[in-house]
């Protein structure tokens, strides 16, 4: 023991890992080292970095950075402008928004959650706008540097203007932790490709600060990446040993080996399972073996900043098994995690009870790649027997034995969400995938789970090679049907589904034996030497391109909607499974889209004074707003109501109109040639009021009934039997079917009054129709794609 103490190991989880809950890897390895008597510390650089970037001080600095930088292209300029528009709201609200995300109370208040999410979105947009080509997100992000290219990853590590992590690490990295002379080993966990750029950035900085420490790299992604290398890769400038597969035991062996000192003709790593190291330009490696998880030490969550994760709880990850015994054609999980093993259920239940007692959180996330029927039954029984009093969720697959009895046991043990890999609702496609599941079983399992009151989530893959368009559409319809069934028949509100296009992973069966799946794999571009995914051509069925379109159609996305500030890239729009789970636990509703009303119409009294609403920010856009304009537009953001709007306006100070009487506003707008999307000044004045950019000093006491009219500037995309309509000012998208399409067309023609129906009420509720006194028709504007030459 004496030799082990006084020499410290620091375990690092680099960004970007999911910011809503801790990652299991580092606390698990820390627990393992401690149990073996080693001195070690953990540094979750991912949450430390995200938490710091989402702070008032960092956002202030980022605003200055966004102001001062030059955009690399038009789209980048658009992102930069958006950052400047949202900066005041983001900076003013970010601390409160983070506190809101971390509070269970917010889950019960849909309006508060909506507001919090919007502020965090603004903050992420601000971060993105401070770096060229950057989409900063809490789950994955991109910058101008590709994580698929060695050259770009290395270049990024030294560039604080192009790589957000280098910029952040320069300011927030805890250097003292690594300057501690007792630190002799630093272990870096890399589980996903989202961690590569930040991980290498950290490693390059560590080498500068402490060239003497022994650096160990491990994790699922590191395992898959290093497997492909035969010769020394530049990553080994920063890394001394890679531990592939599992780290328990192996990391301790590295520390022991270093302690024994060098022996001529031998390398201590020869006896460490799964080790990879550079030996004069050749990578040497030892066979991996599966760690014994039956005696796994508990994860050391006490070493993590549990108050910084961006969800209430914290939700603590645990595992009851490791790897997956199945061989699904699309998946590479078994490749990196050795053989399938299960832990004794009683030990798992004891660990959960201890975690709950230590950290006060009853929320548990099983991170098993798959909870088998045996795991589910044994863990469920153990949790009931030990009265663990927790809520938990995990992931399994459809199987005949998941019946009503087991579903009831799971609910009784605290299960409040179960993720299933549905993948496809077509048995033929499931068989192509070698999924080994039966759609009949899926139907029975789903009914059993919902009857027991357990919400489910379905993962869907769009466009597996060989899948037809019809089969893909049927899967989407099935997933939608499951949601309706869950809510309408079983009263289970928190059932969700999500799809993504098929991705060909080189370590998956399709990647290793493409000919068996009717696939021709395209070689990667030479510069994408780190890519573990491949483009491909399928002999039959949906093409790779079309799988993206199917996914976008299923999501109601319009494809590349960079036409407007809001666009489709709302970094907070995707479902956050941690929040869906927590809502199910505490009985809070799913956050529906709140009503998006149009304000102050019909017009106020002619003598009413018009004021610019508080919190409205503005910036000059680098493009004209309509086909008829030549000058750049003025972009406005109403933070309180979350509305973006562009006026063509080349004047110097829009704020001159502040305080005008309403009767003069129209002529002011006409005189200043300031209008919205080619509408006339009267329509522009009305629209500024309807979206709350201008506020009248006096409102009409009791608006008359008026006629329902279509809001101006609505974008429509028709696909098949549905219309998707987006209001670019509010960002709300609705899907119209059947009679609703006819209703919308009638409102556009505006020839006859429309009776109030559920359809018109819904359209008015979400800001597509408004009531207006009968007046002559207004001109209809036409969009121009931003950046298009006019």
């Amino acid at each position, binding site marked *: 023991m004496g030799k082990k103490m006084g020499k410290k190991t620091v375990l690092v989880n680099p960004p970007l890992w999911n910011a809503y809950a801790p990652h299991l890897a580092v606390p698990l390895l820390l627990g393992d080292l401690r149990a073996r008597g080693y001195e070690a510390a953990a540094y979750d650089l991912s949450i430390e970095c995200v938490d710091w970037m989402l702070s008032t001080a960092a956002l202030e600095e980022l605003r200055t950075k966004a102001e001062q930088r030059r955009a690399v292209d038009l789209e980048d300029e658009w992102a930069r402008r958006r950052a400047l528009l949202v900066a005041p709201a983001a900076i003013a609200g970010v601390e409160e928004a983070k506190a809101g995300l971390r509070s269970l109370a917010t889950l019960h208040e849909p309006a508060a959650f909506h507001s919090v999410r919007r502020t965090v979105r603004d903050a992420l947009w601000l971060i993105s706008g401070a770096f060229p080509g950057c989409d900063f997100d809490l789950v994955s992000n991109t910058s101008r540097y590709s994580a698929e290219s060695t050259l770009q990853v290395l270049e990024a590590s030294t560039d604080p203007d192009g790589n957000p992590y280098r910029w952040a690490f320069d300011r927030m990295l805890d250097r003292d932790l690594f300057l501690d002379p007792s630190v002799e080993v630093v272990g870096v966990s890399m589980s996903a490709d989202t961690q590569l750029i930040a991980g290498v950035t950290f490693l390059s900085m560590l080498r500068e600060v402490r060239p003497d420490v022994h650096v160990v790299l491990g994790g699922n992604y590191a395992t898959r990446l290093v497997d492909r290398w035969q010769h020394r890769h530049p990553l080994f400038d920063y890394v001394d040993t890679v531990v592939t597969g599992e780290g328990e035991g192996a990391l301790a062996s590295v520390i022991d080996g270093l302690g024994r000192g060098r022996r001529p003709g031998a390398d201590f790593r020869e006896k460490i399972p799964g080790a990879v190291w550079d030996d004069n330009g050749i990578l040497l490696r030892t066979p991996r073996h599966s760690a014994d998880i039956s005696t796994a030490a508990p994860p050391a969550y006490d070493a993590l900043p549990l108050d910084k994760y961006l969800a209430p709880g914290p939700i603590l990850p645990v595992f009851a098994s490791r790897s997956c015994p199945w061989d699904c054609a699309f998946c590479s999980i078994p490749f990196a995690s050795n053989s399938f093993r299960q832990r004794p259920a009683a030990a798992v239940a004891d660990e959960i009870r201890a975690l709950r007692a230590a950290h006060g959180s009853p929320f548990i996330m099983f991170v098993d790649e798959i909870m088998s029927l045996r795991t589910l039954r044994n863990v469920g029984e153990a949790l009931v027997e030990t009265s663990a009093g927790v809520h938990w969720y995990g992931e399994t697959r459809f199987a005949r034995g998941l019946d009503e009895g087991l579903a009831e046991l799971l609910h009784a043990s605290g299960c409040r969400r179960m993720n299933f890999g549905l993948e496809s609702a077509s048995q033929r496609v499931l068989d192509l995938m070698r999924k080994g599941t039966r759609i009949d079983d899926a*139907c029975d399992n789903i009914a059993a789970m919902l009857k027991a009151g357990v919400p489910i989530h379905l993962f869907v893959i769009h466009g597996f090679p060989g899948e037809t368009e019809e089969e893909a559409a049927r899967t989407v319809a099935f997933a939608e049907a499951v949601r309706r069934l869950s809510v309408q028949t079983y009263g289970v509100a928190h059932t969700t589904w999500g799809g993504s296009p098929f991705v060909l992973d080189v370590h998956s069966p399709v990647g290793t034996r493409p000919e068996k799946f009717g696939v021709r794999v395209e070689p990667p571009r030479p510069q994408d030497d780190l890519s573990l995914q491949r483009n491909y051509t399928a002999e039959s069925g949906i093409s790779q391109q079309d799988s*993206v*379109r199917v996914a976008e159609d299923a999501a109601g996305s319009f494809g590349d909607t960079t036409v407007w500030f809001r666009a489709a890239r709302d970094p907070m*729009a995707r*479902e956050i499974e941690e929040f869906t789970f927590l809502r199910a636990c505490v009985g809070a509703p*799913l956050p529906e889209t709140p009503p998006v009303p149009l304000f102050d119409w019909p017009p106020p009294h002619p003598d009413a004074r018009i004021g610019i609403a508080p919190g409205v920010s503005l910036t000059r856009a680098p493009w004209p707003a309509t086909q008829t304009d030549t000058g750049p537009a003025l972009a406005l953001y109403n933070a309180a109501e979350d509305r973006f709007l562009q006026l063509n306006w080349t004047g110097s100070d829009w704020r001159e109109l502040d305080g005008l009487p309403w009767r003069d506003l129209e002529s002011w707008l006409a005189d200043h040639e300031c209008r919205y999307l080619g509408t006339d000044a009267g329509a522009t004045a009305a629209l500024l009021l309807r979206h709350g950019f201008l506020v009248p000093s006096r409102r009409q006491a009791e608006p008359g009934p008026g006629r329902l009219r279509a809001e101006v500037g609505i974008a*429509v995309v028709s696909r098949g039997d549905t219309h998707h309509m987006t209001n670019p000012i509010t960002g709300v998208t609705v899907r119209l079917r*059947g009679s609703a399409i006819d209703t919308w067309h009638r409102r556009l023609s505006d020839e006859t009054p429309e009776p109030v129906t559920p359809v018109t009420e819904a359209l008015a509720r979400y800001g597509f129709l408004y009531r207006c006194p009968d007046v002559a028709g207004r001109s209809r*504007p036409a969009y121009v794609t931003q950046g298009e030459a006019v």
Partner: protein
Amino acid sequence: MTRKKTDLEQLMAAAGTTGEGPAVEVVQPEVRTGAQYALLPSMKAKRPDPSGATPESEAEGGQ
């Protein structure tokens, strides 16, 4: 042996027909995670031609 059809099987049969779902439905990315899946850079390069989905003005859309 006949197996009693579950609600889901019936729903699945119905899902094959068109016109399912409400007349007006707010597209809610919060529920439908697919809305914001992360596209790989290589897939971004292969995005389908968006010309078929070019936003139209309401006048054009209403014809």
